[in-house]
């Protein structure tokens, strides 16, 4: 089985979010970038398929050279090879077109992406890859088993979960549950050394127009100070929630 794991290179959650160039660009100054958390769960599940079922695992990112350390980290965790499609990731649809092209060209059986990235939160890339490659698609995937050509997946739904059966080729939008946090791996010295020898292929992008354009960013208005209510005066809290906030 050939697995392609999509890796989005995102600012760590604790990063300060600021913008430059008249609020049109994300300010990467002092920001630490990490593997998107949903992709880390997916990559770890892919390692399980590699170790237990002999799958071959390639990681891929669409982005500039600055994302390579993130791909190297994925190699150090155990992926066999990495691909970077050399074009800035500015729009979910055009990123999906790049990824779909590689997925099809490379004959991958399973594409693992994340439910959403924590930067633009588009939640669109995995479904679009599936649509573009005509593969089956399971979103919000919290469990995945593969036997030959058949796949069983569990999907989180609003208020519960459902079990699905399908077949390869398959794309999933994965999240926590694919593996647990305690299963995540920190690259060790040996992994880091080996990662240096592993192939990181840089591909030219295929032609694609952007469907959407980011025009400007805004930060939420500074929030007023919290209104404190004394613990022995809860009538006031009820009244504030009813009369002022109008939420009860």
């Amino acid at each position, binding site marked *: 089985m050939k697995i392609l794991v999509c890796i989005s290179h995102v600012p760590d959650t604790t990063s300060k979010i600021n913008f430059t160039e008249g609020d049109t660009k994300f300010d990467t100054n002092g920001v630490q970038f990490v593997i998107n958390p949903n992709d880390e769960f997916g990559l770890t599940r892919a390692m399980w398929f590699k170790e237990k079922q002999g799958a071959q695992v390639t990681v891929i990112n669409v982005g500039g050279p600055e994302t390579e350390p993130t791909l190297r980290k994925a190699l150090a965790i155990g992926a066999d090879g990495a691909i970077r499609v050399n074009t800035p990731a500015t729009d979910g649809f055009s990123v999906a077109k790049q990824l779909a092209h590689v997925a099809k060209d490379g004959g991958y059986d399973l594409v693992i992406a994340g439910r959403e990235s924590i930067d633009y939160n588009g939640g669109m890339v995995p479904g679009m890859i599936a649509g573009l490659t005509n593969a089956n698609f399971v979103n919000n995937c919290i469990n995945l088993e593969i036997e030959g050509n058949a796949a069983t997946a569990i999907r989180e739904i609003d208020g519960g979960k459902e079990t699905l059966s399908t077949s390869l080729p398959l794309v999933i939008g994965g999240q926590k549950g694919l593996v647990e946090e305690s299963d995540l791996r920190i690259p060790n010295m040996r992994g880091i050394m080996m990662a240096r020898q592993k192939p990181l292929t840089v591909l030219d992008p295929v032609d694609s127009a952007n*469907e959407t354009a980011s025009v400007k960013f805004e930060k939420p208005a500074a929030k007023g100070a919290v209104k*404190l209510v004394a613990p022995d005066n809860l009538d006031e809290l009820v009244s504030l929630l009813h009369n002022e906030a109008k939420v009860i």
Partner: protein
Amino acid sequence: MSVLVYTESDQGKFKKVAFEVASYAKAVADQLGTTVTAITINATNISELGNYGVDKVLNVSNPQLDVFNAKGYAEAIQQAAEKEAAKVIIVSSSANSKYLAPLLAVGLNAGYASNVIEAPSSTEPFTVKRTAFTNKAFEMTAINTDTKIVGVSNNSFGLVEKSGSASAEDFSPSISDLAVKVESVDKASNQVSIADAEIVVSGGRGLKGPENWGMIEELASVLGAATACSKPVSDLGWRPHSEHVGQTGKPVASNLYIAIGISGAIQHLAGINASKVKVVINTDPEAPFFKAADYGVVGDAFTVVPQLIEKLKAFKAQQ
């Protein structure tokens, strides 16, 4: 040329988000000077949509679509869009709509903006405001394709009632063989889900143990709220994983979020910041949640929550 909106139902009944996206579609249609067509799949009581600005309903009844299937539903919506020559399609941010929207976008070769919180600020170019960076910022996004899909964030636009009526028409899209099959569904039927809830009551590690959740559930039931929890609480097995909210858990966009014994770590706030009004109850006045909250009580949950339940019961009785 009308605006098409997918109005979701569950076992035939419209979900609240159906009325919210219909209200949003009406606002967009007014801006464009056109009408609203809704597509419903195996829904009953279709006339309810007329109260939220829908002019016409394409009513699909198809046993193949009894259980939600992203590909099948996307095919139905795509054919409705083609039939109506719709250039703007509105969907919600439910798990199901977020599942089908990217497939629909590919089918219609449409640009898609998700997590949109306001009516378009301009229709030429078509520009919408959406949340980004896990609610730490907003992004103004222009959709440049001929056909556009807007995913509206839950509880962001609200319900706008209109006095009107919708005409209904049966619609029979052709659905291909569906290669992703639902084998079983496991869903608590009598509970408010976090995604649908207007109010969410959430407990953290400050509650000390699962045996203390009775008061959280009672508070939720008085308010008609869903219950949620912080990550360590579900990691410790005190509450099911499905209740875990935050960056790595479920997102919350309720009108009211009540955090009890939760410190307010950045990863927790990332998932709940889209909620409109936040209340914190915590013994520690230095807990970071007080910086994010609108209302706060510095106090012991074990005395504050039971009293709050009594006060709310009295308030509800008066209403």
